[in-house]
C-alpha cells in the first residue's frame, strides 16, 4: 500500500536567462511514495498556482525514461540519487518523510538557463549538425543485412546509441564537459561500416563544435558515466580520442 510523505523543497527559481536566479523554499505535502519525481513537482505546482505563484518550470515529455527531455540536479546528483535512471523514472519512495530536497538546473555555460529548471540544450543539436550523421546522397536505404557487421561492433554501437542526449553527463562533469555525449554520438557511427567514409571529418568537426559551445575538456573523473541514465561508458571517450588521433594523421 502506498503511503504519503512531506518534503521540504529548495528549488532554483530564475524568471528568464537575463535575470539572476535564487533558491526558494516550498513544502511538498502529502506526496504519494508511488509518484514519480515529476509528478511530485506537478502536485507542488498545482498548490503554487492555487496561491497565484508562478509554477516551477521544468522540461519533460515522454515521462518513461526514453526521450531525454527531463533532468535536474537533485541534492547534487544529476537525475537524482538513483543510478541509471532519468528524473521522470525516479520515484518518491527513494525519499524519506521530512527530507530536504535541493533541486537545481543543469549548470554549464554551454547550457544557458531559460527558466527555473529548463536549460537550452541547443548546443547538443549543433554538435550533431556538425557531423553526427551519415550522408547518403543517392538511392534507397539498402537492406539491413546487405552490409555484414560483426556482432561485438553492433553491440557496442547499440550501447553508444542508447544516449538520449539528456545532458546529465555535462551536468555531472566537474569540467562541464560534453565529451561523453559527443563521444557516444561519434562512436555509434564510427563502429559501423556506414560511418567509416566520413569518420575523420566527423570527429574533427564534432569536437570543434563541442569546444565552440563552451564545454570543458575530459579529465577522466568518470562522473559522467556514474550519472548517465543509459549507462554510456567512458570507453566511448577512449574511442573518440582514438578517432581523433587517427584523424590527425589522416590526409582527408
Amino acid at each position: 500500500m502506498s503511503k504519503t510523505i512531506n518534503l521540504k523543497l529548495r528549488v532554483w527559481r530564475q524568471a528568464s536567462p537575463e535575470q539572476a536566479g535564487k533558491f526558494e523554499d516550498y513544502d511538498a505535502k502529502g506526496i504519494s511514495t508511488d509518484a514519480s519525481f515529476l509528478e511530485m513537482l506537478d502536485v507542488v505546482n498545482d498548490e503554487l498556482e492555487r496561491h497565484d505563484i508562478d509554477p516551477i518550470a521544468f522540461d519533460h515529455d515522454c515521462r518513461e525514461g526514453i526521450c531525454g527531455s527531463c533532468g535536474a540536479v537533485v541534492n547534487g546528483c544529476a537525475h537524482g540519487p538513483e543510478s541509471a535512471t532519468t528524473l521522470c523514472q525516479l520515484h518518491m519512495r527513494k525519499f524519506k518523510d521530512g527530507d530536504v530536497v535541493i533541486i537545481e538546473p543543469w549548470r554549464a555555460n554551454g547550457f544557458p538557463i531559460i527558466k527555473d529548471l529548463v536549460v537550452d540544450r541547443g548546443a547538443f543539436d549543433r554538435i550533431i549538425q556538425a557531423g553526427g550523421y551519415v550522408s547518403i546522397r543517392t538511392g534507397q536505404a539498402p537492406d539491413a543485412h546487405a552490409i555484414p557487421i560483426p556482432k561485438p561492433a553492433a553491440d557496442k554501437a547499440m550501447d553508444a546509441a542508447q544516449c538520449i542526449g539528456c545532458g546529465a553527463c555535462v551536468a555531472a562533469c566537474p569540467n562541464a564537459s560534453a565529451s561523453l555525449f559527443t563521444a557516444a554520438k561519434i562512436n555509434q557511427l564510427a563502429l559501423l561500416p556506414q560511418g567509416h567514409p566520413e569518420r575523420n571529418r566527423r570527429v574533427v568537426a564534432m569536437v570543434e563544435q563541442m569546444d565552440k559551445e563552451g564545454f570543458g575538456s575530459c579529465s577522466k573523473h568518470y562522473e559522467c558515466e556514474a550519472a548517465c541514465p543509459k549507462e554510456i561508458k567512458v570507453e566511448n571517450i577512449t574511442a573518440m580520442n582514438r578517432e581523433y588521433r587517427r584523424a590527425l594523421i589522416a590526409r582527408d
Partner: protein
Amino acid sequence: MSATAVLPKRLTSTVARELAVAISGLLLVGFIISHLSANLLIYLGPEYLNAYAENMRSLGPLLVVARAGLLAVFVTHIVLAVQLAKHNRKARSQGYAIETRHGRKGAATRYMLYSGLMLLAFILLHLTDFTLRSHEGPNAMVGGEDLGLYGLVWNFLGNPIRAVFYIVAVCSLGLHLSHAISSVVVTLGWLSENGTKRAELAARAAGIVVALGFSSIPIYILLKTYVLGGHA
C-alpha cells in the same frame, strides 16, 4: 593574435591539447624512471653516484640538447595542463549548491592540478639545490671529506626540513602518477574498458613504487645521520 591561432584548428582543440598533455606526460614518466634508477645508486656508495654524474657531464653538448628537450617537454606539459584547467573552470561559472561525487575516481583525480603545481614548486627548488649548485666545496663535505654530488645530496637531504618537503613532494608525484597513468590510456585511445580498469590498478601501484623509491633516500640518510651514524 594568440600563438595558437596560426596552427591548424585540429591541433588546438581540447582533445588535441589533452593528447599533447598525455604524450608529454608519458615522456616525463620515462624521465622519472631513469631519474629514480640513477638516484638509487646512492645505496652503492659515493663512487657509483659520482661516476654516474661524471658520465652525464661528459656527454657535453649532448647533455645540453637532452636538457633543452626535457625543458621543452616540461613546459609543454605544464602550460597546456594549466590552460586546460582554466578552460574547464570557465565552463561552469555558477556552481551547484551541493557538490557530490559518484564516479569511481578519488582524490588523485580531483587534486591533479594541485599535485602538479606542488611538483613545479619542488622542481624549481630541486634544480637550485642539485643541478645549478657546484657539486664540490663546503656543501659536499661529509666528515671532513669532499664527496662531490654524493656529499651534496647527503648534506641537503640530511636536513630534516628539506627531507620532509622532499618526501611530501615525491608523495604528490605518486598521487599525480596514480591518476596520470590511468588517464593516459583513455586520452591516447589505447585500451578497452577492462584494460583501463587494469591500468588504474597499475597506475596506483606505480604511484606507490615511485613515491616509496624516492622517499627511501632521505629516510635512509636521516636514519644514517641521526640513528645509525656514518655514511655508506
